[in-house]
């Protein structure tokens, strides 16, 4: 056996030392990665979502759309005002509501409601939505994100807690269906509305 192939005592110790460091690094990597991804793992299975109250039903007049504010269910001590979130609450009639996220479905800018023209308009890239949240024009590919809601003990509550984004898995909770309602042709307004009324009736919602 040649000398080159022989493992010296010190060479062996060096290799064991490297292996030892590798093992320690692997062991330490586990808590580090867990720590780094804690914001992801904590929210698995929609754990960030809770039912939060927006106020009494009587605070939202029928046929109108009002701005409501709620405190995010998951907060940290340094959040300050950023723990607050706003949303648009449309009381269709009776206990039938639509609660829209403030974030434009395009890139998340805050949309504003114009009751006179019955449109939500986004100041960033000009996305516009009809009163039922369906896309009217501009760059958004879908209607406004819609929070699941229920009326409990006279209070309007919504399931919220995550920033609605176009690709979020909870986007399905935010009404990820094809936007209902008026497009550009009068004929299609009628046909789509009737189709949407049926879908929403099945979902326990209504659409005007």
């Amino acid at each position, binding site marked *: 056996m040649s000398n080159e192939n022989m493992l010296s005592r010190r060479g062996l110790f060096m290799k064991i030392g490297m292996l030892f460091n590798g093992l320690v690094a692997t062991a330490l990597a586990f808590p580090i990665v867990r720590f780094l991804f804690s914001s992801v793992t904590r929210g698995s299975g929609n754990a960030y979502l809770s039912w939060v109250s927006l106020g009494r039903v009587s605070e939202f007049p029928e046929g109108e759309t009002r701005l409501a504010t709620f405190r995010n269910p998951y907060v940290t001590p340094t959040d300050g005002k950023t723990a607050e979130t*706003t949303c648009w609450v449309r009381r269709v009639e009776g206990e039938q509501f639509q609660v829209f996220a403030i974030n434009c479905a395009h890139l998340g800018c805050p949309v504003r409601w114009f009751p006179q023209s019955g449109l939500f308009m986004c100041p960033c890239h000009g996305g516009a939505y009809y009163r039922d949240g369906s896309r009217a024009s501009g760059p958004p590919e879908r209607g406004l994100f819609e929070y699941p809601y229920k009326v409990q003990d006279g209070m309007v509550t919504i399931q919220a807690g995550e920033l609605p984004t176009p690709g979020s898995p909870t986007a399905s909770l935010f009404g990820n269906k094809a936007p209902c309602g008026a497009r550009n042709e009068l004929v299609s307004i009628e046909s789509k509305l009737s189709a949407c009324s049926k879908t929403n009736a099945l979902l326990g919602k209504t659409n005007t």
Partner: protein
Amino acid sequence: MSVIGQIGQWFDKRLQLAAPIRDAAEHPVPRNTASWFYVFGSAALTVFLLQLVTGILLALIYVPSASEAWSSLQALNHDVTLGWFIRAMHGWGSNFMVAIVLIHMVQVFLFGAYKFPRELTWIVGVFLLLMTLGMAFSGQVLRFDQDAYWGLGIGASIASRVPIAGPIIVKLMLGGPIIAGATLSRFFALHVFVIPGMLIGFVCLHLLMVLKLGINEWPMPGRLVKRATYEDEYHQLTRKEGAPFVPYAVWKDLFFAAFILLAVAACALYFGPFGPTGRPDPTIIQTAPKPDYFFLWLYGLLSYLPPSMETPALLIGPVVVIAFLVLLPFLSGEGEKSWRRRPIAVLTVLLIAIILGTLTHLAGYTPWSPHMNAWSGDPVPEQFLHARTALERQGALVFQVKQCRNCHSLGDLGGQRGPALDSVAVRLTQDQLVRQVIQGGGNMPAYGKNLSPAETTALVAFLETLHPHGQAPARDAARDIALIEDKDHRQGAPR
């Protein structure tokens, strides 16, 4: 020997740095590189050092907490002595740094400096550009105001579109489910520790390679780079005909570095610090967030891309651009260096500059955004109301109240999202106006459900008056004939 000399010797005996520093400073460079075109790299380094110093100074006061960051910026602006100036230097320094890094890159590209053997220097430079942009974005987040808050929302919306990993990236980016305290903390860590640390490391690598491989010689048309012969040719230019970098070429770098620092200080003094704008309070929705100067082109691009193109462009575009930049020295590692004989290279730079410039210019006045207050704030020009019937004036009122003005201008006032309507009656007939108002189309919402028949009649009556003096409104000749025929028919006339 003087005392200072003796102290110097004492240190150098232990550090042994004097000789390598002298070698580096006096390394020979090709004589024609002592040019004003070769000062941008050192200028970028100078501004980076300025950013390090001013950044550390700001960190003495700044509080990276979502509830206090904005107030600490106000304290810097108004309470701390010269806090406003340090903030302004840091803000303008970032603008200058992005600009100088881009100019440096263009110069290096046009002078063919990325070719053999400087491929890796270029690739490291590409990463330095990305890190500079990363600093610019994270710095904007640290100026925790309304623009920063909603800008993060835009960032999250873009990141969320990545297939499968999108939601994970969003939560990693935000540090939680929403834009809040954890978000600012992690952007602080990125802006202050992670990216600067990487920048320092990559800058050292970049400089080391410039020293080891030598500065790119002034490209001469027709002198082609060949792997086999380049190093000998370069050796000839430096060792035989070259001159020491210090002092032969360095004085121009020194002059330009001082000039740039003065320019940053002048901008800081004259224009002052950037923001912060309104409080980062999500309940204040009367805001039109806008990115900083160097991302305005992206803001513009996002409003012009067709909706279906947007996600692919956002996700694939950056990958393609970065891959192209990294692969560039391997695609054309040899051959002509001079921009005089590389027309495609020159045209590419011009095209990109024009596109970025145009998009940035457009983003300055955002013609794609509705003017949210035009309906209530902009007056209807007098000439459009003069000698009009009550119905037409009623239509003008409908036009304002229904926010048509937010997207359509009259007399150059109002939104520019839709076409200006000063002469709309020349383009559309009465029927077409009714159809457009009720059904929308062409990027206009349908107003059918928000206008009563009476309002539609009044609005269209007003729109029909919008035509230049002496130019008749459009009319549908076929409709006139049809109406006459219909009238005749009713009167029982033979057809």
